Structures are given as C-alpha cells and as structure tokens.
C-alpha cells in the first residue's frame, strides 16, 4: 500500500476522506434544502399554477405582495409573535434550567415533565389547548370564574391586549395602532412557549454543566452572593448557549404554522385575521384554490430574507457580547 502512504504524505487522503464523510449529509442537504431554495427563487418570477409554469412575470409577485394589506398585517402579526415568544421562552427556560441544575430531589422527574410537551405530537397538544381555551366549555375560563374573575373569549378575541387592558382600567379611548396583539394570538403564543420550553431547558442544562466548577468555587471563596455568581459567572459563561437558543428560537418562531392552522378559526387565522402569520399567508396563497406557487415562493423568499438578515444582525451585534 505504498501509494496510500505516498498520498498521505502529500496530504491528499485526508481532504478526500473528509469529503467522503461529508457526502451523505451533503447530498441530503443539497437535495432537500439547497435545490428547493434555488427553485423557489426561480419560481418566484413566474406564474405557477397546479404544478405548471404558466409564464414569466418578472417582479410582479413582489409588487403585488407589497401592495397587499393582508401581507403587511401577517408580517405585523408574526413580529408580535416573535417579540413575545422569544424573550419569554428564553427567560423561563433559563430560570427552569438554573433550578434544575441544582441537586434537587426528583430531578429526573422534573426534567421529564418539562420535556414531555416537546415529544408530544403538536397536533394533539393543539387540540387539547383549543379545548382549554374554549370560551364556554374550556378549563381556563372555568378556573378564572372559580377565582372570581370574568371569562375571556381567548381564541375568539380579536381585540388587542393593550387596548383590552386600557378598557379594563376605564380608559375610554386608546389609539388603534397601539392595540397590540390580539388575545387570540397571545393564546397561541402561550402554547408555543409552553411547548418549546422543554427543548430550550435541555440546551441550557447542557450549557450550564459545561461551566467548570472551579469558577463557582472561586467565586464562593471570594464571598460572592448567589445573584453575583449568576451575573458574573453563569451568565457570561453561558452566553454561547444563550446565543444559540436565541437564534434557533427566533428562526422557529418566524416559521410558526401548525398551532395557527389547528387552533385558530374557522376561518384559520381568525378572529379578524389577527392570528394570520406569514407562513399561513404563504400556505393560503400557494395551496388554496386559485393558489399560485410562484406568488407563494415570493412570500417564502421575503420570509427567508427577513430571517437571514435578522440572523446576520444577531451575529454582528449580539455576538459581540458572547464569551467563547
């Protein structure tokens, strides 16, 4: 096998071996990720109906998109959703992970409980929560009434929560633009947070366990308080994990679809379109009767551009504060 050792001496085999190892994953990624993205880009300049390309339309889909108030509404709805779900989910997951990282009793039980929603079918979860939120028969309103509160419409409530709060404290007037996300959207967000939290806890736990004990011991010897230890040791050393969780939760939140499809309406995206997120808008435009895959592809690309630029922004700005 002298040729092999010759090759090895010339550092030829190692890149080749590496390439061979990369082939399986590479093929899958190219076929199922790259090619669809490229074809979506291509199709967004054409009319595509029922699987057939009907003609080149240039940037017409993008122009129509910009002129469609429903598109802008769905973008705003998605922004509310992301702005609500990401910080709350991060905060709660971190809190739970820090607690679960201690040597408490029945640790395994709690870890399982928090992870259970993640492994449960999202369809089943959505149907159960839909019942919990039901205005007349739901568990939540039952509990609220038991506690002496009034019942709420939840998934049927199109009013913005800020506006509802203002009305509740007796204000007669509230600017339309500041009504906030509808209570219906908040209900969907609650489910998303509840469901996603277990996954983030696991990631945070892994991050926490990677922090060497010496730092904690040193801090304790120096007489640091629990809060100081968290702020000066845990938080900075956990920052790579936090950054990853931030990125992945943001991306996943932009792509929310299943809960919206199953929990809202009829019609889906209701009440009054206040839960029509961008991916559902895309779905409707592509798959409903009269749908145009070219137009839906344009929506997908706009969403892609938004997520990409946000991720780049996070890498440029937020990553400066990450300690590796």
């Amino acid at each position, binding site marked *: 096998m002298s040729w092999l050792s010759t090759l090895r001496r010339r550092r030829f085999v190692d890149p080749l071996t590496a390439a061979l190892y990369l082939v399986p994953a590479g093929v899958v990624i190219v076929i199922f990720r790259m090619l669809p993205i490229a074809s979506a880009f291509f199709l967004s300049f054409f009319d595509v*109906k*029922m*699987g*057939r390309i009907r003609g080149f*339309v240039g940037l*017409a*889909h993008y*122009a*129509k998109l910009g*002129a*469609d*108030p*429903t598109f802008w509404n769905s973008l705003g709805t998605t922004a509310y959703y992301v702005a609500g779900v990401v910080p709350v989910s991060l905060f709660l997951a971190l809190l739970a992970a820090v607690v679960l990282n201690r040597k408490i009793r029945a640790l395994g039980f709690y870890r399982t409980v928090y992870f259970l929603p993640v492994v449960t079918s999202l369809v089943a979860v959505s149907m159960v929560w839909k019942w919990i939120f039901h*205005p007349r028969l739901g568990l939540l309103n039952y509990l609220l009434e038991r506690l002496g509160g009034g019942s709420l419409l939840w998934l*049927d409530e*199109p*009013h913005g929560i800020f506006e509802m709060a203002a009305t509740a404290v007796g204000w007669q007037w509230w600017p339309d633009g500041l009504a906030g996300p509808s209570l219906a959207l908040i209900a969907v967000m609650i489910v998303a947070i509840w469901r996603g939290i277990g996954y983030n806890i696991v990631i945070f736990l892994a991050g926490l366990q990677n922090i060497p004990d010496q730092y904690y011991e040193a801090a304790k010897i120096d007489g640091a308080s629990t809060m100081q230890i968290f702020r000066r040791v845990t938080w900075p050393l956990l920052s790579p994990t936090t950054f990853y969780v931030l990125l992945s939760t943001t991306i996943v939140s932009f792509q929310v679809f299943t809960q919206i499809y199953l929990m809202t309406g*009829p*019609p889906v*995206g*209701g*009440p*009054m*379109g206040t839960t029509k997120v961008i991916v559902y808008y895309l779905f409707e435009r592509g*798959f*409903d*009767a*009269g*749908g145009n895959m070219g137009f839906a592809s344009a929506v997908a690309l706009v969403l892609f551009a938004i997520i990409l630029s946000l991720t780049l922004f996070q890498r440029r700005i937020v990553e400066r504060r990450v300690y590796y």
Partner: protein
Amino acid sequence: MKRIFTFGVLAVALASTVVLLAGCGGGGEEETAAIGAVKVPFWHAMGGPLGDALDELVLEFNATHPEIEVESISMGRYQALSQKIMAAVAAGEPPVLAQAYEAWTGELIENGSAEPLQGFFDGPDGLSEEDLADFVPGMLDNNTWDGVVYSFPFNKSVRALYLNKNLFEAEGLTRAPATWREYEDMARRLTKDTDGDGEIDQWGTAGQISAWMFENLLIQNGGQILTDDGKHAAFARSEGVEALEFMVRLLTKYGKVTSGYEYQNDFQAGKVGMIEGSTVSLSFMEGKYTFDMAVAPLPAGKQKGCFVAGTNVVIFAEAKQQEKEAAWKFIKWFTSPDVTARWAAKTGYVPVRMSAIESEAMAARLDEVEGLREVLAQLEFASYEPRSAAWYAGRKHLEEGAVEGALRQILTPKEALQGSAEAVEAEFLGVVPM
C-alpha cells in the same frame, strides 16, 4: 437474537397497518362492486347527514348500474377538497369526478383539466332540449364558460328564515316578516327578558359571522358585489353600507352573534325567535327541536334577492374516455328529476330541476315543512356570486374583515367595508380575470 426480535415487531406492525388500511379503504361499497366495472373515484366534501345521504344514492346508482362503480370519497371540508384537487392535478393524477366551486372550475379549465360536458349532453346518452330547459333558471349558465358547459349543478342551496312559531304566536305574530322593516320590528318584539332579572333571555334573532348573509342583504338593497366588469369591489358603496348597518343592528340589538353554529343550537333550544340559515340547515336540525317550526323566504329590502350557494361537479380531462362516460352517466342520473328531488328532500339542498319541485318525492317534504315551497320559489330570481379566483380569495376579506369587524363592533360598517374593499382591490391587482 435481538435483531430478529426487532424485525418480528416491525413485521407485525406493518402487517397490522396493512390490514387496518385495507379495512378502512373498502367503506361500505364492496358488496355491490362488480368485477370489471369502470371505477369512478368521486371526491367530495359532504359529511354528517349529507355524506350519509350521498353515500346512499351512490350505492343505489352502483346497484342499478353494474357496469359502473362510483367510489364516494369524502375529504371532510371544502378547503381540504380544493387543496387535494389542486395537488392531484399538479401531480397528474386527479380523480374522475369531483365537487367544485365555480372559481375552482375556472382554474381547472385554464389548466386544461376540466372536461367540457357539452359533448356528453349533445351526444347519444345526452339530454334533450326539454331536459335542459327543465334545469333551474340560471344554474346551467352559471356552469358555462365561453359558451361551453364545463360543470353541472350538484348541491345547491339558498338562504331561508327559520321561525319558532310558538314564540311568534305568543307575541301575536301570525306570519313571517316580508320586508326588512318587519324583520327588524318582529326581532325587536321577540327580544325579551322573560324572567325579569334584567337580562335578556329570549332573542329575536341570532346568527354567525357570514359573508353570505351580507351578500343577500346587499342584493336586496339594490347593491352589487363587484363592478359590472368584475374587476373591482362594489360592495362598499352606500347600498352595502346600509345593508351592513342593517345586519349589525339586527344581530347585535335584537340578536346574538355566536361563533360557529351555536346560534343554531340556541334556536333549537327555543331561545331565539327566528334565524337565517341555509336550506341545508334543515337536515342538521331535524328532530332536535320540540316547537312548531316554519321556514320562509328572506324578507325583501328594496327588492327581493338571494344568492345561490354550493358546489357543482366536474369531470377531469385526464381521465380515460370510458371513465368520463361512466362519470357522465352518474351526473345525468343524479340530476334527473326523481333523484335530485330525493336528494333535495333528504338534505335540504334545492332540486336542480324545476319539475322535481312538483315531483312525488318532493311533495311529501313540502307538506312536512311549512313554507318550503315559498323558500324554493326564491330560485326564480336567484343570483350567483362572481366566479373569478380573485373574488374567491377576496370573499375571505369580506367575511374576516368587514362582516366580522362590524358585527364585533370594532369597526363601523362603513370603515369595515372600505378596508375590505381595499384588500379585494389588492386581490385583483395582477390577477388575470377569467
């Protein structure tokens, strides 16, 4: 050893899945399936009592036509049906026969996937001039594109007023409202606090958020949905604003707006004087109320008016010639006076043939349901909704935006309609009208 065990488990799981699937697939039709019969997969969205009624007729057709086997396949709801049809056409494997709204048929024609039916009823197994003239006026026109009939009316309905006669009589009301003014007046009189606790517990009327109700009021008020060229919204003009104002007044002052079909349950429970519904609501309410009920045509505004709703059937161009012929036989049979009358009597859909209204099967039904004859008479002046794909998408804006916003009293009827009209204009932007 372990591997063998795993394989065993997998094999058992796979086998039981196959068995289960086979069990599900057969439905109830296998006993009538003749060997060598032409199979006609029929995709539809009929469920509940409607699905049962359809399956029964399909079985009867298969039994009387041994050379054909129509396979009734329910997709549950219209949205799912449309998505399956569009995906199946894109994949090149559509069924032979399917229910379709006019907007879908328009899309299918554009794609070359809808078989013109004209050839069949001009052909040897066709329909005579007499037969064609017997169809409810306007129904065939509504299935005609550029002078060619592409689809046939299948399950069509109109709106009707359902009255609780006991509550009416208790109030000294002897007949259904004939005008908007009477409609509002009677609803007001039927709205009552029966036990004196300061809360209203009997409502004049009730309803859900429905673009269809608004469209009917719009046309009764002399308005129109789209401009004459079909490319712009016209529903936000003053006729539309008045119609929506009337609808809001009626349903929020003297009535209740419920989500879904809860208003129908409240009516069945005797808590509501009258409700609007589709003629099909009859089959869903059957046997669920204890009072004397009557139906009546919609009250007139400036004029009488109603929109026909419901779908048609299309045959797919991709099917084999003998499958198409078999599908046509089914359509012809289903829309024959006797069968359409039985379908109508059972489901509440309107018969598609005028002679069916006078048939024996229908006579019993007309005796049974007071006022049904007058409700069906609305077909003589019935209108049909715009058929373009842009309007199909635009209609959602009308329902989700204008009607919902106004009924929830978040927007005034005027601003609600203007907002929806803008969204509808956006729908028409860049869309080639059919």
